[in-house]
């Protein structure tokens, strides 16, 4: 089996801190982004640092919100609330060609 043809289901982790409006906004934005670029074909973990500090530690997270694009590699961290103008950069990290460009 050719490994390059094996489609990788993208893995994203969104770290937020507590149920703040900033967290809610970040989650909504990232969900919209995923649905836009990879409808139904992605894995998104939303991690609250309060709930799972060990996960934050493993991923070296101290700023929130932070979106980690884990797969496909190399891993990339997007720190801060995503603006729509930032979306193509996330898409690039996901190896997705967009028609936005």
């Amino acid at each position, binding site marked *: 089996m050719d490994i390059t043809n094996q489609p990788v289901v993208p893995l994203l982790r969104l*770290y937020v*801190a*507590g149920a703040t409006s*900033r967290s809610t906004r970040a989650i909504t934005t990232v969900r919209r982004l995923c649905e836009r670029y990879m409808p139904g074909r992605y894995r998104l973990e939303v991690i609250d*640092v*309060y709930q799972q*500090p060990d996960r*934050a*530690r493993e*991923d*070296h*997270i*101290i*700023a*929130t*919100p*932070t979106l*980690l694009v884990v797969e496909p590699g*190399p*891993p*990339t*961290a*997007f*720190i*801060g*609330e*995503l*603006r729509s103008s*930032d979306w193509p*950069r996330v898409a690039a*990290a996901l190896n997705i060609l967009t028609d936005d460009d």
Partner: protein
Amino acid sequence: MELPAAITNLPKAPTGIRGLDDITGGGLPRGRPTLICGGPGCGKTLLAFETLARGAALYGEPGIFVSFEESPADLRINVANLAIDVADLEQRGLLLIEQISLDQGEVAEVGEYDLEGLFIRLGLLIDRIGAQRIVLDTIETLFSAFGNQNILRGELQRLFRWLRQRGLTAIITAERSGQGLSRFGIEEFVADCVILLDYRITEHVLTRYARIVKYRGSSHGVNEYPFTIGPRGITMLPITSFGLRYPVSAERISSGFPDLDQLLDGGGYYRGSTILVSGPTGSGKTSLGALFVAAACARGEPAIFFAFEESADQIARNLRSIGIDLQPWRDRGLLQIISSRPSLAGLETHLITLLEVVEQSGARAVVIDPITGFHTISRPVDITTMLFRLFDGLKSLGVTTLATSLTNAGADPAQSEVNISSLVDTWIVLRNHEANGERNRSLLVLKSRGMRHSNQVRELVMDANGLRLVDIYAAGETVLVGAARIAEQERLRHEYELRERETIQRQRRYALQQRLLSLQIEALQAELAALTDEMNADAALSEARAQAQIQSRLATSRYRDSTQEGSDGR
């Protein structure tokens, strides 16, 4: 201006670092953040770690070390020689070393964010061990991991507020660069206490300094305080912290040289005092030092001889030639001869090492031979400062210290040491006298506080039998020593004998004259007596004659009367 007591008595968290607590008047502000800044390699991390570890070990205050850079494994290696059992503290839940890595590979900053994640993680660590102290090392790493300086500054300000609210004694380390104290002006947020670390290299020797730039609500030492990083961690030497508070002893201890003890009011040095022996090369300084430590050892007191010019064996051998054997004391472990080159370390390092060795060994008598060895590595003003602190430090330990000082031949020893003369209690000046093709030594007790000491110059005689002092002969302006003294002594004895003989002869002459006169008096008296007899005899004869004449005249007239009566009256 006097600070109100309430503010001066700001609660403090002792660092447990030797000297630092003296300078800060008890430690860092308790429950508040302190900033330690300095360039790379100046000891920030070590100072922060030691405060944390000693706080845990000595004061039972649990602490967290948060490293943004170094791994805990690296850190443990770097602090391995602090004489603190880090692993034990960690096991007992008194110390927690946590690395907060900021390495996230590819990073893009896209919008607004905060450091809540950091707060949460720190909060959990703090709760886990009930931390009272925390170190964040170094803050610049945070800045370099994030691009948006505005957000970061706001978040750091919030972090410091949060640390205060949690009542943590916090140490934040910061890189120093350029003009400001820290690269990002963090000192503006951490206003309570700012300590600046620095080092300078002079004559290829490194010396570290610490200075308290700011300590809100507390008085503190304002000088630059040198410190060393030694086998027992950081040692800082406060210039004035001893503050002349050491106990004064009235006990007298022998100088190890009975003749010298005689000059010192018969009792020797005061215990805990500082003695300076100055003189040119070969005038006997080292010997006086050796006698002093030997006497201490003989009393059963540990002693240390710091030799900055000769090796231990060289000293032992040289002293054996004048009958001083230090070997038995070395064998018994009472005497240490520690030899090192002044140029091997900086002045401060020498100073601190010296004090540390003395304190650890419990030595009661210390010789430093010579203190002038440091002139090769430092400026005179620094040496004076160092000696001031050294003597002060030794005094506070109750140690009696004899320091030797090399003076240039020709220079007036009383002049050249004027800088440190006020530091010493007893000052002995040795001189060489060169005349008539030989060299001899003299000794003078220039001063000795608190005792009536001799003001006489004595000749110091050294030979295989040891040392002794002999009265000196002065001929006019010149002091006579050695062969000249002996010659003078001989001359004086001859003169004396001569005078003695003359006296006897004169006495005899007088006695003779006396007898002659007595005889004359006898003769005259005899003559006088004869004359008196003659005179008396003559007087008696004349009397007799006069009587006889009267008798005869009477008889004649009686005859004539009788014949005239018969013819006329019948």
